[in-house]
């Protein structure tokens, strides 16, 4: 039995703030930040948007593409996020209710920094393959927090991507997955703390690169594939530079990375990041093409997937808005409005 993606959906809030507008407030040099991070602007949620609302929008788009799937046939809903609106009360139940998936379903919120939703996809794959459910849905969504003036403020953004996993009517098959996890304190947020803290450059070598590279290699070794077998590669995108360097270490070309690199104009959507990159690839990929997806979550771990696109993608991708649409649908706000929305939407 093959297992894979039956539907996928993206969502990015409409508002953007430019790096220049943030840098001006803190007296930073916008030029060096932009070239250093490879990010020009980032998405900002409206005051009335949070992880649950983003997740619902993305999930509705996924359902549109999985047009044969009835909500009642979805047996599992997972929402991966590090900004769940409640500390206790599941975002996943709200999403399931809003999509009419309730009540015969399991649901849970997952947290593993920016990679919880890929763990959710793995859980769905297992449940589908084990015959426990017909379809499962995993959504990565975040309205990422960052302390004012912190380097994170230039990238921490908002977005969501949802995937329906099943074994029939696949738009893409997942031919294998491999994970790599260790306890690494590169980035964290304690209970009750408003903003995360991080280890600066320590988030690089022992954290992001160690896990992204090892998980990707591990997957390719298991499947007996190599970099030239992949038309596209998508990594988690904390900024515009890390994924390019990971690609270089692994031997991928810029061309393989380019389509899925959606960080430059929306920032780091955290749990949505690598999955929005994958959605951008699915928006254009042709039947038979192969994609390597490797997420990364601080703390730290990576889930790597090898995905082969199927014929059905052609008719299904046009049933919901593309990532490109959401990236280009935007309105700029200044730092004052940004501050208002950030301070207040966190209540």
């Amino acid at each position, binding site marked *: 039995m093959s297992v894979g993606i039956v539907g996928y959906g993206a969502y990015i809030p409409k508002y953007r703030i430019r790096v220049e507008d943030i840098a001006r407030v803190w007296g930073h040099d916008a030029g060096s930040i932009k070239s250093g991070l490879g990010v020009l602007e980032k998405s900002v949620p409206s005051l*009335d948007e*949070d992880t649950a609302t983003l997740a619902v929008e993305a999930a509705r788009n996924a359902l549109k593409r999985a047009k044969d799937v009835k909500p009642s046939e979805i047996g599992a809903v997972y929402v991966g996020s590090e900004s769940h609106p409640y500390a206790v009360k599941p975002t996943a139940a709200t999403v399931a209710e809003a999509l*009419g998936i309730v009540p015969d379903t399991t649901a849970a919120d997952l947290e593993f920094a920016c990679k919880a939703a890929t763990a959710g996809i793995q859980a769905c794959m297992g449940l589908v393959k084990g015959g426990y459910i017909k379809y499962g849905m995993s959504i990565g969504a975040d309205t990422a927090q960052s302390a004012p003036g912190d380097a994170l403020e230039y990238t921490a953004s908002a977005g969501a991507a949802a995937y329906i996993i099943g074994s029939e009517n696949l738009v893409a098959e997942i031919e294998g997955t491999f994970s790599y996890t260790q306890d690494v304190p590169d980035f964290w947020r304690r209970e009750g703390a408003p903003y995360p803290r991080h280890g600066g450059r320590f988030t690089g070598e022992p954290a992001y690169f160690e896990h992204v590279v090892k998980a990707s290699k591990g997957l390719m070794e298991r499947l007996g594939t190599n970099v030239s077998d992949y038309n596209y590669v998508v990594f988690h995108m904390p900024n515009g530079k890390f994924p390019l360097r990971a690609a270089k270490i692994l031997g991928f070309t810029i061309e393989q990375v380019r389509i899925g690199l959606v960080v430059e104009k929306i920032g780091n959507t955290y749990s949505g990041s690598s999955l929005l990159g994958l959605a951008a690839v699915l928006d254009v990929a042709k039947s038979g093409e192969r994609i390597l997806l490797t997420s990364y979550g601080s703390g730290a771990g990576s889930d790597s997937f090898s995905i082969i696109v199927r014929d059905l993608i052609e008719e299904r991708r046009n049933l919901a808005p*593309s990532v490109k649409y959401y990236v*280009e649908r935007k309105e700029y706000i200044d730092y004052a409005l940004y501050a208002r929305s950030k301070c*207040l939407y966190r209540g």
Partner: protein
Amino acid sequence: MSHIAPPAHWRRAKERYRLLGSKCENCGSTFFPPTKVCPKCRRKGRIVQTEFSGKGKIYSYTIIHSAPKMFEKYTPYILALVELEEGPKVMSQIVDCKPEEVKIGMAVEVCFRKLFEQDGEGIISYGFKFRPADNSWKSLQ
């Protein structure tokens, strides 16, 4: 609304999350808010739940500048009467739209947003709002 206990929020949540109304299977009329009796067919009517498409047009609108505490942080916001394509009207906020852009007759589509939060520790209420309909994505694929 801080005095409203959870059951009052929960009771109508499905309808607010999914824009559910009611429909009379006898005459085909649709209703929002959901009704228990078809005013036309009365006892002959058969009322069932129905999910609206979420497409509609602005019938009238206002920009709220002065709002109750629960909604204060969102001011100024657009409040509208939206005429659904199925016929009934709903009262809802229009988002992702500048106050100067809204007008009567404008096509809108449903979205899912926070309606209000009780306070830092209370319940968050979610439900439908509307945004300007945008079909440009169809040509952007």
